[in-house]
């Protein structure tokens, strides 16, 4: 199946370009930090770590991935191959989600979290959201500087409300989808089914936008500066 080949190709690409190596280093650093934190802080600290890094890595890395593919003109070749835009989007999302879930598993295990299946599910869904947001932004830019400027507002919207919600869980804010993700990770969700449903709705909407954005990018490929 082509989608499996694309996912394996993306994992190979990410491995060759050092993404796995970087995340082994980050995981080691986070584990070290978890051990030096007082035990009472550990649960909240690991929730913030998982939400803000492995789950959100797509937002940080999609710019680099798409710019590398643009600069090496790989996208030109994909655009005239049988690969569909939606397959490209799925492959990027799944491949990054796998790293997110692996790192999240290590952190949750080290921190001694009891809700590991919930954490992994929330990480997977949140990772998809951040990767799709990163991909949508990356399709419209030609340099890393543009990507940083474009994703800065996204970072504010995506990180500040969940961070506040972790410490001050108000009723109104529970309807913000990414707060649901934070609640699932920190084992404080009042309604896990509702939180998962909200995340899935966001993912479906973002998939449709990312597919259109990818199609548009493939049709207007040009040179890029890294």
């Amino acid at each position: 199946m082509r989608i499996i080949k694309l996912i394996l190709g993306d994992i190979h690409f990410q491995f060759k370009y050092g993404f796995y190596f970087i995340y082994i280093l980050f995981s080691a650093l986070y584990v070290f930090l978890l051990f030096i934190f007082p035990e009472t802080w550990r649960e909240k600290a690991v929730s913030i770590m998982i939400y803000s890094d492995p789950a959100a890595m797509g937002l940080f890395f999609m710019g680099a991935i798409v710019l590398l593919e643009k600069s090496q003109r790989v996208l030109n070749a994909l655009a005239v191959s049988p690969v569909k835009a939606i397959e490209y989007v799925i492959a990027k999302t799944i491949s990054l989600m796998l790293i997110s879930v692996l790192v999240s598993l290590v952190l949750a295990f080290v921190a001694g979290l009891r809700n590991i299946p919930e954490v992994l599910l929330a990480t997977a869904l949140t990772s998809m959201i951040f990767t799709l947001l990163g991909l949508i932004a990356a399709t419209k830019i030609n340099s890393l500087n543009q990507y940083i400027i474009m994703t800065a507002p996204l970072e504010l919207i995506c990180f500040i409300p969940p961070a506040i919600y972790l410490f001050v869980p108000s009723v109104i804010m529970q309807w913000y989808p990414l707060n649901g993700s934070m609640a699932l990770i920190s084992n404080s969700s009042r309604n896990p089914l509702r939180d998962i449903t909200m995340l899935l709705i966001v993912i479906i909407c973002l998939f449709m936008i990312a597919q259109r954005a990818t199609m548009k990018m493939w049709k207007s490929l040009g040179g890029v500066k890294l």
Partner: protein
Amino acid sequence: MLTVKNLSFSYSKKPFITCMNFHVERGEIFGFLGPSGAGKTTLQKILTGLITTYDGSVKLDGIECKEHDNHFYENIGVDFEYSTMYEKLTARQNLEFFSSLYAKQTVKIDEILADIGLQNDADKKVSDYSKGMKSRLNFLKALLHDPNILFLDEPTSGLDPANSQLMKDMILQQKAKGKTIFLTTHNMADATELCDRVAFIVNGGIKALDSPHNLIMRKGAAKVLYTYYDKHERLGECLLSQISEDNVLANLMKENRILSIHSSEPTLNDIFIEVTGRTLQ
């Protein structure tokens, strides 16, 4: 194989390609020649289904290009002017990856690498390849799924004479296999050597379309140039069609006084300038 009828396209309100009509037979090498910005890349994007908002009809192998599905690409190979590989992966890894994207996998990677002399460099990263090696590898990538239609964009650009000849031989091998080849180039010598027919594209329209030989013969008369000694070396010339009327040449031949003689035909580049008023090189 390709039928283009009343093709028009515009990026803005100003027309860019206007009422283009032509037909390409199966097994032909068809050249698109024109200066930068003439519309060659846009035309290639239309033919490869990347631009679908055109007016008129463009049928490639019976499929209207703007209505294609992704199976359309199983039968098309595109060789870009530049490398389109993952630079950190080896040649073999790149070919295996791109090959895996197609349903039709009839080509053995080791065999085709050997065909173009890259078997010993198959496990080298593409970033370590020379320009010539990258060009050959890129060409190979376009053939992985054994397509019937090839789009080649400046295939000899930047290559040294030996690699350029190798590339041209590979293109002719594909023609011998019955593939239809669309060649976009600035290089008139390559077009003359490779193409069965060429279209001169300027300002989004076709200014001339015929075989290179016919274009040359139709537009320009062959000349005969000769040198001889008469106190000092002199140059004479006459039209080949009027050679019997050149009394100077006749006398020189009778007296065996010709120092050199050769016929000279106009090049495709001369014809392009004459037809379009523009230059390519």
